[in-house]
């Protein structure tokens, strides 16, 4: 799938999480997503950016507008070099949190996207990729 536009944003402070939300919103508008889909994308991005900061010790997100003649989408790749996730199935279960959170970040971001991938290795870091098609 050809990449139409791409940009990387560092995630190192709570203000960066806000900046990521704004950047994702802007891209979603540019790609023609309707308001509900924009809201879903920004909400998923907010959850994953916060995880990158809170658990991954900071990292970055790659925001890509992708598409061919048939469809367009927004792909977000969050990456950190933090402690990783020991049990991914457990972390993806709604309500599971190691930090007293609601445990809805990963499971919610998955529900809010059309495609969801997670790679994580203890001691090496975590990469979460979500895509939503228009």
């Amino acid at each position, binding site marked *: 799938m050809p990449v139409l536009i791409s940009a990387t944003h560092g995630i190192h402070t709570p*203000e960066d999480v806000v900046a990521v*939300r704004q950047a994702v919103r802007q891209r979603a508008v540019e790609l023609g997503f309707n*308001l*509900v889909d*924009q809201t879903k994308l920004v*909400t998923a991005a907010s959850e994953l950016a916060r995880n990158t900061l809170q658990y991954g010790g900071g990292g970055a997100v790659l925001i890509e507008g992708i598409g061919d003649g048939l469809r367009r989408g927004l792909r977000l790749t969050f990456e950190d070099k933090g402690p990783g996730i020991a049990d991914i199935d457990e972390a993806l279960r709604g309500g599971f949190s190691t930090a007293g959170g609601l445990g809805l*970040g990963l499971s*919610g971001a998955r*529900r809010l996207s059309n495609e969801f991938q997670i790679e994580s290795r203890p001691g090496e870091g975590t990469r979460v990729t979500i895509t939503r098609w228009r």
Partner: protein
Amino acid sequence: MERIPILKMGEYLLVTIQVDMHDRVAMTLQDDLTARIVSAHAKGVLIDISALEIVDSFIGRMLGDLAAMSRVLAAETVVVGMRPAVAITLVELGLSLTGVRTALNVERGMELLRRRIAEQGRDGAGSD
């Protein structure tokens, strides 16, 4: 540091969240609001989120915590003005906002508070 203003309107407090808050601002609001409920002897709190473009699990949890804390301080909380797109997204996120009362706008929220507080007055008198 930025802060969310808290306005006193009679026996109620009105919190209008106007910015895309980052997490530290949200935490500060919890502390500020509980202190204000006590110092203003507030019976009710309206939290206007009509300017919020998203509510994620962190903000959702904060709203739930605010409602629970004000209940402990004998004040009712109503969250008003949630945008339809936000409400749809919250359901898909899996967040139920249990224990958080909501209303369409500030006026409706006021009515709800008045009714709730009147009911409580009656219940209190009855159980004496």
